[in-house]
C-alpha cells in the first residue's frame, strides 16, 4: 500500500462501497494513485459473526440520525432511517446480492409516466444503451448468475415455495437470480455454502463485495492509500470554486487535511448530501454544489414491504441464501394496476431475532407471537419497486442534535407518495395470492425495514438547475467534484440499485481517467 503525503494534491474518494470501492479499483488499475477515506473500520470476512444482532452492532452505520415525516420508520425506528454498513467495503458487505438491470424506460421516467402530482420526476441524462456496455462489465466483475455464462444458484426451500406459487398464479419470469453470489467457483472465490447469513457479512466470500474484489485488487496495484476510520467533515474549495482539500477526523479524533486535485464522494445517499451541506461556504451558501437547491432532495428508498406466509408443513427458510429468487412479471409499467412504475418480488428470510424486531414493529400479544411460533413453517419475500422522487423527501442537517464529533446529524424526512402506497398494496396482495396458491394458512404484511436502498439526493440532470451532477456524475457547480454512489440516481427504477451504482462507477472511472489525461479537469 502506498502512502500519499497530506500536502500532495490527490485523487480522494470518500467511501469504499459499491461506488467508491469500484472507482478506487478502476482508477488504480489505470495507474492513478488514490486516497480512500472510509469512515468505518477494516472488518475482514473472518471477523463476521453468524448472529443477527451481534453482526448488526458490528457492521451497521449506527451514528445518530433523526427522522421526520409520515413514514412508519419515524415512529418505529426514529434513529435508524437506513440499514447500511459502516466498514471497508461499505454496504456491499451486507447486501443481498440481487443484480437486475434498469429497463430502458426507467431512464426516462418523466417522459414515460407523464406528469404526476407531487412527484419531481425527471429523465436521466443517459440511456440504457449508453450504460449497457458498463452493465456487462459490472456483471462480469460481480459474477452475476444467469448471465455471461454464470450458473444459476440452486433452489433453496424458500425459493421452492416462491417459485411454485409464482407458477400457479401465472407468473413466467421467475428464476433464482440474477444474483452476485457464486453458484460455482468464480473469480478466485468459492461457491456458496448456503449458510443463510447474508446481511451479517459473507464469511465464505462467495458473495461479491468490494471487500473481496475491488479493494484487495486496488491494494495490489500499490497505488491505493486506504485510510479506515476516517470520517470526512468538510470538502474545502479555493477562490475559483474548485475543491482543494478534504478535512477529516482520523481514528484518534484528530482533524486532518488532505490536499485534493479531485474529490469523488461515495458515502451513500444520506452521508453524501450531509457532507455537501456541511461544506457550505460564503461562495456556496446553500451547500457545496447546490446552486440547484436539489442537494438532499428527492430522497428515494424504494417502495418495499415483505410478506411472511405460514404453512402447515416445514419450510426452513433460514437454510440457504437469504435472497435467491426473483420474479420480474410485475416489473413492467402498467398504469392499469393503479400506479406508475413496477416492482420485483424477491425471496427473503430473517432469523427469529430480526423477525421479532421488524416483522410487525410495535405489536405484542397473540397476534405477534403467532408469527414467531410459525417460524419453521414460514416462507418470506420482499417487494422492491420504484418510488417516486419528491422534493420534500429530503436529507437536511439537524443542527439541534450532534454526533460524537459535535457535527450536526442528518435528518431524513420521508412521506410515501400515493403511487408508492398503491404499489405496495398491490405487491402485498400479489404475494398473498402467490402463497395462497401453494397452501398458506396465514400471512403477515411487514412494513418497510429501515432503508437499505438509498438514492437520489444528488441527482443527475441534463440542466444544472434540475439537479446536482451531470451525466458523468460530475458536479454542475464544481468541476473537480464527482458523486459516485446511488445519490446520483435521477429516479430509482424498480431494480435493486447496486449493479447500477457499480456500472456507473466503472463508466465514471473511464471519464475521469480520460479527463485527467487531457486536462479536462
Amino acid at each position, binding site marked *: 500500500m502506498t502512502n500519499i503525503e497530506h500536502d500532495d494534491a490527490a485523487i480522494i474518494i470518500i467511501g469504499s462501497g459499491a461506488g467508491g470501492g469500484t472507482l478506487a479499483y478502476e482508477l488504480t488499475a489505470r495507474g492513478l494513485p488514490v486516497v480512500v477515506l472510509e469512515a468505518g473500520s477494516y472488518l475482514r470476512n473472518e471477523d463476521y459473526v*453468524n448472529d443477527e444482532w451481534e453482526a448488526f452492532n458490528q457492521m451497521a452505520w449506527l451514528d445518530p440520525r433523526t427522522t421526520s415525516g409520515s413514514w412508519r420508520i419515524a415512529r418505529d425506528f426514529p434513529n435508524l432511517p437506513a440499514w447500511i454498513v459502516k466498514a471497508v467495503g461499505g454496504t456491499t458487505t451486507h447486501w443481498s446480492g440481487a443484480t437486475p438491470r434498469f429497463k*430502458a424506460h426507467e431512464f426516462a421516467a418523466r417522459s414515460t409516466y407523464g406528469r404526476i402530482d407531487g412527484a419531481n420526476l*425527471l429523465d436521466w441524462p443517459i440511456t440504457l444503451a449508453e450504460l449497457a456496455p458498463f452493465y456487462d462489465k459490472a456483471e462480469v466483475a460481480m459474477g452475476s448468475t444467469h448471465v455471461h455464462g454464470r450458473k444459476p444458484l440452486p433452489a433453496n426451500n424458500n425459493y421452492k415455495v416462491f*417459485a411454485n406459487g409464482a407458477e400457479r398464479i401465472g407468473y413466467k419470469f421467475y428464476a433464482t437470480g440474477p444474483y452476485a453470489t457464486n453458484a460455482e467457483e468464480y473469480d478466485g472465490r468459492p*461457491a456458496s455454502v448456503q449458510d443463510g447469513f447474508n446481511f451479517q457479512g459473507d464469511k465464505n466470500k462467495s458473495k461479491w463485495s468490494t471487500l473481496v474484489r475491488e479493494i484487495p485488487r486496488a491494494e495490489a496495484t500499490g497505488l491505493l492509500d486506504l485510510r479506515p476510520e476516517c470520517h470526512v467533515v468538510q470538502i474545502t474549495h479555493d477562490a475559483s470554486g474548485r475543491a482543494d482539500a478534504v478535512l477529516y477526523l482520523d481514528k484518534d479524533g484528530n482533524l486532518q487535511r488532505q490536499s485534493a486535485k479531485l474529490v469523488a464522494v461515495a458515502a451513500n445517499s444520506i452521508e453524501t448530501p450531509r457532507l455537501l451541506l456541511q461544506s457550505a461556504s460564503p461562495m456556496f451558501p446553500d451547500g457545496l454544489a447546490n446552486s440547484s437547491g436539489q442537494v438532499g432532495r428527492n430522497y428515494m428508498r424504494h417502495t418495499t414491504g415483505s410478506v411472511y406466509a405460514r404453512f402447515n408443513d416445514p419450510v426452513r427458510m433460514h437454510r440457504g441464501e437469504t435472497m435467491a429468487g426473483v420474479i420480474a412479471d410485475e416489473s413492467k*409499467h402498467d398504469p392499469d394496476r393503479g400506479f406508475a412504475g413496477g416492482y420485483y418480488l424477491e425471496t427473503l428470510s430473517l432469523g427469529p431475532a430480526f423477525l421479532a424486531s421488524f416483522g410487525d414493529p410495535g405489536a405484542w400479544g397473540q397476534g405477534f407471537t403467532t408469527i414467531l411460533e410459525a*417460524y419453521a413453517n414460514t416462507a418470506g419475500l420482499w417487494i422492491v419497486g420504484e418510488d417516486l422522487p419528491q422534493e420534500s423527501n429530503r436529507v437536511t442537517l439537524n443542527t439541534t442534535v450532534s454526533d460524537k464529533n459535535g457535527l450536526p446529524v442528518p435528518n431524513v424526512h420521508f412521506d410515501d407518495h400515493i403511487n408508492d402506497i398503491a404499489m405496495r398494496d398491490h405487491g402485498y396482495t400479489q404475494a398473498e395470492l402467490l402463497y395462497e396458491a401453494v397452501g398458506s394458512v396465514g400471512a403477515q404484511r411487514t412494513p418497510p425495514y429501515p432503508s437499505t436502498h438509498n438514492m437520489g439526493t444528488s441527482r443527475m440532470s441534463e440542466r444544472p438547475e434540475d439537479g446536482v451532477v451531470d451525466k458523468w456524475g460530475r458536479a454542475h457547480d464544481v468541476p473537480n467534484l464527482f458523486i459516485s454512489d446511488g445519490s446520483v440516481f435521477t429516479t430509482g427504477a424498480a431494480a435493486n440499485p447496486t449493479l447500477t451504482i457499480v456500472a456507473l462507477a466503472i463508466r465514471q472511472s473511464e471519464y475521469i481517467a480520460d479527463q485527467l489525461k487531457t486536462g479536462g479537469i
Partner: protein
Amino acid sequence: MAFPAKYPQLNETELTGEARSVLIRVIRVAFPHPSFPDGPYERTADTILREAENSTWFRVALTQGLLTLGHLAGGDFRDLNDEDATKVLRRIETTEFFGFIRRTTVLNLYDNEDVWEILGFEGPSFDKGGYVNRGFNDLDWLPEARIESYDGPEQLIEIATNVSVATVRGGESASASERDTSNQPGKRDATMTAVKK
C-alpha cells in the same frame, strides 16, 4: 406514572423480588409462547432490570408501573388469568412503562438459542459448513421448481401495450426538447394548468 404522591413507594427505586416476579408474568402474558419454559422469560426480565439500572427514567417508570399494576388488576396482577391479564396490559400499552418492557423483550427474548431451538431456527451455520449438505433444499411437499430464466414464447412486456407513452394521469407525450420538471415549470406545465381550469 398516573398516581404520584399518594404512594410512599414512589421513592422506592430498588426493585423488589416481588416486582421481578410480576415483571416475568407481564412478559409471559404479552408474549405468550406455550412451548417456552420459564428460563427465557426470566432471562428477559433480568435484562430489563439490568437496563433499568442504567436509566433513571426507565427505572422510575418501571418501579412505579410494577407497583401500581395491581390497582388496575384489582389485586395481584399475578392472580389474573391470561385473558384478564391481557386486558389490563391493553389498557396500558401506550405507556412508557409498557413500551420499555415491550421494546426490550422484542430485542432480547428472541435473541437467544434457548428459544431458537423451540422455534426451529438452527443458529450459526458457517462453522458447520452451511446448509449446502444439510438440507438447504429438503422441502419435499412441493414439486421441484425451475431455477433458470424463462425461455418460453412469451416476452416480458416492459410497458403495457394499452398505454401510449405519457398518458398517465392526463399527460401528453413529451419530446426531449420540451421536457420540464415539477420544480422547473415549462411549456407542458402551462398546458396542464389550462386543462385543470
